[in-house]
């Protein structure tokens, strides 16, 4: 059976959920071979094996942390040469897309980004994309070379599928250009204790209607009652009420949770672009004409300062 390379997104050996989803998709096309780079790379093996990786190719070097993107492209290219895979799958983060594109160009292949589903096809994997702010669904294929495809978080279920997961050292020689862009400083974001926005099963978001940074406590309280991540519209982020890392939409994160709760958000096309594929959508907005209500499964026309605290209290009561 053909092998499929899966690029592993991990933090010091802790594998992030989208990578496990990629293993599920990779198994539809062939046998997953994972590529893990940087500090803690070998620590990823147990988790990857549990989810279907037959081999885990690892390599650590200081270059991965000290220079932008290119060292990782060099390594993934070395893995392609070593494995001759049927396809290469990469998580659709900003960096993942850049790595995938540069790799594709080097190996003479087409690239598809932001797939939301993947199936084996007669002439190679068929990717589903959700485009134009999720108003259209397209299917496409890479028609030249080894398909390089990036896949969005929450596109497939994480499945247990124990495999060997044998760790093998990957041989990497860095290219002349690998040290072109130096990372001179890095500030790691403080953990909030809440789930990662793109990976969360439930997202609770606040917009301009929240009307102030201090009022986001209401949104956070609702999120915590549901074990949810917190999101924000650009209007709320631009006003300085909530960090940009929590922005949902075209220029923020794209989320696809089981449940999305929009509070004081009108539902502009650029916001919808980041949340329209959520399974269940709920909104609280005082304007009955707000476009967000066109998307909802359930909507409450009302003042969020009344509705949201009551909802939170009711959830906490029900949970006992």
């Amino acid at each position, binding site marked *: 059976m053909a092998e499929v390379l899966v690029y592993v997104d991990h933090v010091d050996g802790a594998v992030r959920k989208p990578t496990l989803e990629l293993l599920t998709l990779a198994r539809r096309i062939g046998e997953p071979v994972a590529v893990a780079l940087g500090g803690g790379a070998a620590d990823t093996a147990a988790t990857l094996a549990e989810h279907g990786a037959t081999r885990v190719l690892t390599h650590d070097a200081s270059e991965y942390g000290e220079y932008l993107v290119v060292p990782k*492209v060099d390594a993934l290219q070395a893995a392609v040469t070593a494995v001759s895979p049927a396809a290469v799958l990469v998580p659709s983060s900003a960096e993942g897309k850049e790595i995938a594109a540069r790799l*594709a160009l080097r190996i003479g292949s087409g690239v598809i980004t932001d797939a939301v589903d993947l199936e084996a096809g007669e002439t190679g994997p068929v990717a589903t994309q959700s485009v134009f702010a999720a108003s259209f669904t397209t299917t496409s294929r890479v028609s030249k070379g080894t398909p390089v495809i990036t896949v969005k978080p929450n596109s497939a279920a994480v499945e247990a599928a124990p495999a060997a997961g044998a760790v093998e050292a990957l041989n990497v020689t860095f290219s002349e250009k690998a040290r072109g*862009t130096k990372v001179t400083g890095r500030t*790691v974001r403080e953990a909030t204790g809440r789930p990662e926005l793109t990976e969360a099963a439930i997202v609770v978001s606040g917009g301009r209607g929240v009307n102030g940074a201090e009022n986001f406590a209401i949104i956070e309280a609702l999120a915590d009652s*549901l074990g949810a991540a917190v999101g924000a519209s650009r209007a709320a982020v631009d006003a300085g009420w909530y960090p940009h890392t929590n922005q949902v939409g075209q220029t923020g994160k794209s989320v696809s949770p089981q449940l999305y709760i929009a509070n004081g958000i009108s539902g502009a096309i650029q916001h919808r672009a980041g949340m329209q594929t959520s399974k269940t959508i709920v909104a609280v907005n005082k304007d009955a004409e707000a476009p967000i209500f066109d998307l909802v499964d359930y909507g409450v026309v009302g003042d969020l300062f009344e509705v949201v605290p009551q909802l939170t209290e009711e959830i906490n009561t029900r949970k006992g």
Partner: protein
Amino acid sequence: MSLKILVTVKYVPDATGDRHFADDLTVDRDDMDGLLSELDEYAVEQALQIAENYDGDAEVTVLTVGPEDAKDALRKALSMGADKAIHVEDDDLHGTDAIGTSLVLAKAVEKAGFDLVISGMASTDGTMGVVPALLAERLGVPQVTLLSEVSVEDGVVKGRRDGDTASEQLEASLPAVVSVTDQSGEARYPSFKGIMAAKKKPVESWDLSDLEIEADQVGMAGAWTTVEAAAQRPARSAGTIVKDEGEGGKQLAEFLASQKFI
């Protein structure tokens, strides 16, 4: 010392209009309202600021690959203050994918000559966010992308990249390819004077033969990806909307419980 900045800008369908696909599954650009991609306005803005703050001669050229109407995008950038424009236009470009677009842009950038290329973070139609990385790969120069802050001094570009888990400070020597996010600072509005001045600024037109690119390297025929089908997403079925009359929060909790979220 002089500094030559090239800004890549894309002409895109208005996101607030009715965007759709043509019969050949490319974006229908015939009956649409097009404009300069809003995210490329940030690139133009940063280019103008870098040029204004530069100690020496700096020149800002805007470059687009697109159909006849893409001139509108160039005019807008010129009216914001860019010095000149290059329009790459050729019938054979119809249906070009990201790899092909990067080839055309790279050839055009090389022909024009550059110290710094500035791109937007992503287009508002294709939204791939890969063209700047591809350009850096093709040009063999450093990629300094997705910056929310950028500056140029003594032949070095510096900036801040806010990633998923960390915020990074980056640095590279020129020549380089930079892309900037919508966090990099609001773009200026063209002034009346700027709009009038733009009418007299030079716009060069190049076709594929000017760039020594063969027709089969681009377009749908040259694409390394194929779109097989495009379908409008079915409208979400109408939901239940209630007006809060004191029990809205509880009603919502009831709904969430019925869906097993609580």
